[in-house]
């Protein structure tokens, strides 16, 4: 007989909350595994899609921005390599944001029938995109071998910036997930945001090219985009000494993450108990 006493009451302290999340870690893994398994069910290529998508995106971007947009003329290294970190960040960010914002609604059958800390659901979405990140990174190494390019020690920082990319998506994703329970409009807005976010993030071009347009106000706005910070940082650590570390975009990213992270968790806690009434 388990003598531990559990108390169900209206207010829970933050430490109890974290302890509880920890005690449900097994469910966290199972949900993450489920999402990954389900994603490739009844597809012929299966995990192959995680290779094809980033590969084709990189090639198309390198062609469109490099060859047609003529951005590759003044880069020291092959333009496909320049595009790769941008594509890795963008695919991970957009996928995570999409999955986060839908997470609660998609799992409404769980939310209305069983108890567990609801935060487990959005947290477990991270793995969905991580599989793709892992595969695209391997792809990046293959391209490196192809072009005989050798990244330096900074490569070990890649996981840090990937985590920051998830955190950048986490805050807004979590708030969207909560709002989406009551207002399904969010489900319409997010794909739209992702669609145009692509163009205001330096996926296929360099932040440097924005600075050199000669319009300082535009550059100042541009670096506020958290995705810009992620891509700049990843370019800095993946591409040897091709890109310099851009504090202009990194600081806004850190501030953005800290603010949205704590605010979104507070927002989530405030609303998680009423999910079942609105779902």
């Amino acid at each position: 007989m388990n003598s531990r006493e559990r108390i169900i009451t209206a207010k829970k302290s933050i430490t109890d909350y974290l302890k509880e999340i920890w005690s449900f870690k097994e469910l966290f893994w199972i949900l993450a595994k489920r999402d990954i398994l389900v994603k490739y069910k009844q597809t012929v290529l299966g995990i192959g899609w995680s290779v094809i998508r980033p590969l084709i995106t990189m090639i198309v971007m390198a062609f469109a921005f490099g060859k047609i947009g003529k951005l590759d003329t003044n880069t020291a290294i092959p333009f496909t390599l320049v595009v790769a970190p941008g594509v890795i960040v963008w695919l991970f960010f957009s996928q995570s944001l999409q999955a986060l914002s839908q997470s609660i609604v998609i799992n409404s059958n769980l939310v209305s029938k069983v108890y567990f800390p609801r935060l487990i659901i959005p947290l477990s979405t991270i793995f969905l995109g991580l599989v793709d990140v892992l595969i695209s990174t391997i792809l990046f190494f293959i391209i490196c071998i192809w072009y005989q390019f050798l990244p330096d020690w900074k490569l070990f920082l890649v996981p840090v910036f990937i985590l920051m990319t998830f955190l950048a998506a986490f805050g807004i994703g979590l708030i969207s997930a909560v709002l989406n329970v009551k207002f399904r409009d969010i489900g319409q807005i997010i794909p739209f945001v992702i669609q145009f976010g692509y163009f205001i993030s330096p996926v296929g071009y360099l932040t440097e090219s924005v600075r050199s347009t000669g319009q300082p106000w535009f550059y100042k706005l541009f670096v506020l985009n958290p995705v810009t910070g992620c891509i700049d940082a990843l370019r800095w650590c993946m591409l040897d000494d091709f890109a310099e570390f851009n504090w202009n975009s990194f600081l806004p990213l850190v501030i953005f993450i800290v603010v949205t992270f704590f605010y979104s968790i507070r927002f989530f806690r405030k609303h998680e108990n009423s999910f079942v009434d609105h779902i």
Partner: protein
Amino acid sequence: MTVLSIENVSKRYQLNQKGNSTDDLRDTITRWSNSLFQPSKNKNTKEDFWALKGVNLEVKQGDRLGLVGANGAGKSTLLKVLSQITEPTTGIVRVKGRMASLLEVGTGFHPELTGRENIFLNGAILGMQKSEILRHFDAIVDFAGINKFIDTPVKRYSSGMYVRLGFAIAAHLEPEILVVDEVLAVGDADFQKKSIGKMRDVSNSGRTLIFVSHNLTAVQGLCNKGAYLRNGELIKAGKIDEVVNEYVKTVSKFQLTQNWSDPNDAPGNDQARIKSISLTPNQEILVDNFDTRTPLKIAFEYWNMMDNAELNVSIFLYSMTGECVFNIADDAKIYQKGIVRAECNIPGDFLNDGSYYISAMIVKDRLAPVFFFEDALAFDVLDYREGTDWFGKWPGAVRPKLITVNSVQKELL
């Protein structure tokens, strides 16, 4: 030893007075902007509804507690609070030991995943450790009888296989406290027997069971303690027989007719409101009491508030213990705004003696319930028998004369 103590638990829901069932972003923005100009007016639109009011209850280890009460009495809310799906507004629940709740069979099954994958998924959702699932894995597959299909996606399962697998997993949970909502309502007789048996096992092994059902026979058969809830308040708690008697006594109001003259006061909603419902003997000679021979007529009238609506009426007859004796519906037809009358004839020599009650449902487009008028009528049928010397209680929900048994002398010795 007390394993579960509920101390002064209340639960409040806020109802939107304006009937904002379609709560979209535009409405909220409109309300926000309105509230900027008329802050005081907006506050009146929320109304409190207390689904539970100061409930105090203690459950001892090994108890099998049956929760009874009419619909909307707060039973499900109490279960939801116990299983932590919603938090109580006030009060405290103390739980000792692991608790698992079974509000549905196969919660979280993913149709694309195989039976094997779903066992692990569902097990984890219900709170089992991986080692536990592994230990019971073969037993679960056997119990469900799906050995051949264990690696088939559950979307290809028949609905029976699906339910069996869901129950098999839940049955192998080993919680100290098991909370069960009316899962027994689904599935065939065999499955119901199996699940009742499994719940008995749970309580025989010293674990605690909390069970909610409308089926009083099942509650009485399974539970030793009972709690009776009415309008969110705990009316009586104690031995199951006393609690069930109390419940039946307050519910079995002998009600043969109900009338409303003003649609605004009548039960119903924007689509339909009840005008009247009555039960009369369907024969020339009027009698005060019905016995098993009396043919009965149910007359049901309602205000239809919709134009060109395809409607039909569905009549439910329940025995006093909550088992549905029959559910009969008429053919759907197009009706205009106005009063619609429906009649249902129950032939004589059909019902058994005992208490019955009737609910009526108005259905739209042959599938969507518009309004369910529950426990609309309640009545007793008296016993009548001839040609027998036996006067014990005649068993059965019905005693139809149209089903006959005939004996002949087949051979002479």
